[in-house]
């Protein structure tokens, strides 16, 4: 009898925890974008999170990050592509950079619709893969791609699929994982989702005997990645994106500006990208100087009240500053490089 009451107590606590957590977090994350199928009138999906901030975000069923504003029927569309910065789970719909961009344009008498597609952890290979879909769905609409430091380091060629490969001419192309997918069954509870997320964070800190063996990073074609290849990535990426999307594509570099200590390698990647843009005559901007100026006035673009200020994804102030850069990009003459 005592065992039964203990078991019932444990089960009730787990059920109560599950119920309480569902108020703040959803089992399913944001849907993965299916750009070709996306439509303005597609049903919306609600995603709540308590990982980095306590927030509620909405997506179309085909994965577009919604801006919280009804689409303007005759307004042109701007397509924004990127990784988790564009997924933007941590902020409300109206705080996303796309939403701010729409409001900025509207305030200046130019209505636009911003369609935001983000793939968490994506490298430029993902944007190359998506180019035909974006062009098929959104025609000649302006496309802005948000890039950051992890798009130009070893992760781009050895991390998440699709990965980048460079040919002899230094042009990047996308490699897809041709092995059969072995994703597990969809989780059934928030408890399991948050638990596995926590475990993934913690296991790197576990002692050696308790650490699961992680397979070595797979390099494309089995060839080890060398620093020469990494150094040529920015130009190869810019060239490939320009070929895939046309010269109308614009790139924005999302700089790592923290509260005090800035990442010096981030500035190296930024300079390499801007140089590549000049050489390839692609419109480009970096957010660094705007963010540094904002920091001088006490505005920090990353981090939330529940986490470390200056670290992690953009907070609403960060989205506002990036949106300002996006507006400059949209209005810049072709092949401009905005770095100040």
């Amino acid at each position: 009898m005592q065992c039964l009451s203990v078991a019932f107590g444990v089960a009730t606590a787990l059920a109560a925890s599950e119920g309480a957590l569902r108020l703040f977090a959803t089992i399913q994350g944001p849907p993965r974008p299916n750009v070709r199928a996306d439509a303005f009138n597609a049903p919306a999906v609600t995603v709540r999170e308590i990982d980095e901030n306590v927030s509620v975000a909405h997506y179309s069923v085909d994965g577009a990050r919604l801006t919280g504003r009804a689409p303007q029927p005759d307004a042109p569309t701007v397509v924004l592509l990127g990784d988790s910065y564009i997924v933007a789970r941590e902020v409300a719909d109206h705080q996303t950079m796309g939403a701010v961009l729409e409001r900025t344009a509207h305030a200046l008498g130019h209505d636009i619709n911003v369609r935001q597609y983000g793939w968490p952890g994506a490298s430029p290979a993902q944007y190359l893969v998506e180019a035909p879909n974006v062009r098929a769905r959104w025609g000649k609409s302006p496309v802005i791609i948000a890039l950051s430091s992890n798009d130009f380091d070893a992760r781009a060629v050895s991390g998440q699929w699709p990965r980048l490969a460079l040919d002899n001419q230094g042009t990047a192309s996308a490699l897809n994982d041709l092995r059969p997918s072995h994703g597990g069954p969809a989780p059934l509870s928030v408890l399991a989702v948050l638990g596995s997320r926590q475990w993934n964070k913690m296991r790197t800190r576990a002692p050696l005997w308790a650490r699961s063996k992680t397979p070595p990073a797979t390099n494309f074609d089995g060839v080890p990645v060398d620093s020469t290849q990494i150094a040529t990535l920015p130009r190869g990426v810019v060239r490939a994106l320009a070929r895939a999307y046309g010269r109308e594509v614009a790139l924005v570099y999302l700089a790592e500006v923290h509260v005090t200590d800035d990442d010096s390698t981030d500035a190296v990647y930024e300079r390499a990208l801007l140089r590549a843009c000049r050489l390839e005559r692609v419109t480009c901007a970096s957010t660094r100087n705007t963010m540094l100026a904002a920091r001088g006035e006490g505005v920090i673009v990353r981090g939330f009240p529940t986490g470390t200020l200056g670290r992690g994804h953009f907070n609403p102030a960060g989205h506002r500053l990036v949106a300002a850069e996006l507006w400059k990009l949209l209005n810049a003459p072709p092949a401009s490089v905005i770095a100040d």
Partner: protein
Amino acid sequence: MSFVSLNFAAFFAAVLLGLALMPTRAAKHALLLVANVVFYGFKTPWFLAVLAVPSLVDFACALRIERATDARERRSWLVLSLVCNLGILFYYKYSNFFGDIVATATGAPHLLIYVALPVGISFFTFKTMSYTIDVYRGQLPACRSLWRYAMFVSFFPELVAGPIVRASVFLPQMDRAMRLSWARVGSGLQIALLGLTKKLLVADRLSIFVDPVFASPATYSQGTILTAIVAYSLQIYCDFSGYSDMAVGIARVIGFDLPENFNMPYASTSITEFWRRWHITLSQWLRDYLYIPLGGSRRGPLRTYVNLMLTMLLGGLWHGASWTFVIWGALHGVGLAVHKLWISMGSDSIESNNQWSLTPLKSLKAVAGWAATYAFVCLGWVFFRCATFDDAALVLRKAVGLTPGGVSWLYAPTFLFAAIAAAAHVLGSARAQRQTADGHVAADSYPVLRSVGFASAFVITAWLVILLLFVPQHRSPFIYFQF
């Protein structure tokens, strides 16, 4: 080995299994002694030598003190013991600090000694010193078994960060039957879980905010600095009392009762009361082995204030070889002296002045006393936390608004934890008054669920879920490990 590690979880599980399998008490003691050695020497085996040398000297000195009939001989053995203990402590902890003072005063070059500070050296030095002093005073018979004495000195739950257990409390417990009982295991694990929660969920999460703000105070705004000072007061409380809770809980599971080290310190309405509630075993040690031998309050008011200052200055220096700790100790010495003066001028005794009351005037006095005490303690924490006097001065200038501007960062968990801590202090302070006078853990000292059933299973499961899901990835070492 840190309590907050999978290594320790595996180690403790093995110890428990071993204790369950060992047939006799002697075998269990032998197993625990081996466990103590493994625990302390796990990362740096040579630390064991630093632990062993004063232990052997004190063991021998105590026997000699007991056998000696001549007072001078007894005193000689005591002096030998104290010189050995304090010499080792001085070498490892203070040689660079005092070397720097001498070099600055004389202009001679300062020769730095590059040596790692053995973890917990301040704790086990005080523990072994109290043993020989107690034997010298005739308050304790000398321990005749080296193994029992080694077990007392190296007892792993409290070895590296207290509570500072006296031999008179520990050694008699070795004569008890060491059977694992569900009652002890259940309550011990709950107390350890409470400590783990304080450490992982509160202290480590607050360090996400406190560390960067104190590392670069000039960057942040006045509101952020003030919030960080409050956050640090919570962090250090949850970090240190969390460790103490884990030590008490783990020891209870094994079969030993350790004295409680904290008793709702932030509910104190005077600085004197604060020191009766904060790091109780250190306060009692300083009282019994320093303040009272100096004369305590028996030699007039002026000498009392001097004794308080000396005691707290040395208490500050015990924490670390740095001027900021000396200033922290001096601040508390001044605070205690001023409070004693205040009490001597009024009709209230310390005890009656410290009670929360339902009468309006007394309540007002209590609230004013609480606010002044908490603000004073926080002022002290600024010196305790900052690495240099200049840093502390900058933090204080920022806090009072003399250096305006800076980034505003109001870290939300600080407010949540402050509210929880306030509620826990209000609810717990009444309960804590039932604590036994000798400082032992009373049977109902911790809010422990005693019956096994639906309610306890529900609470423990929900508690574990919260703990596991919301533990931050960021992990900081126990603050008191450095002492």
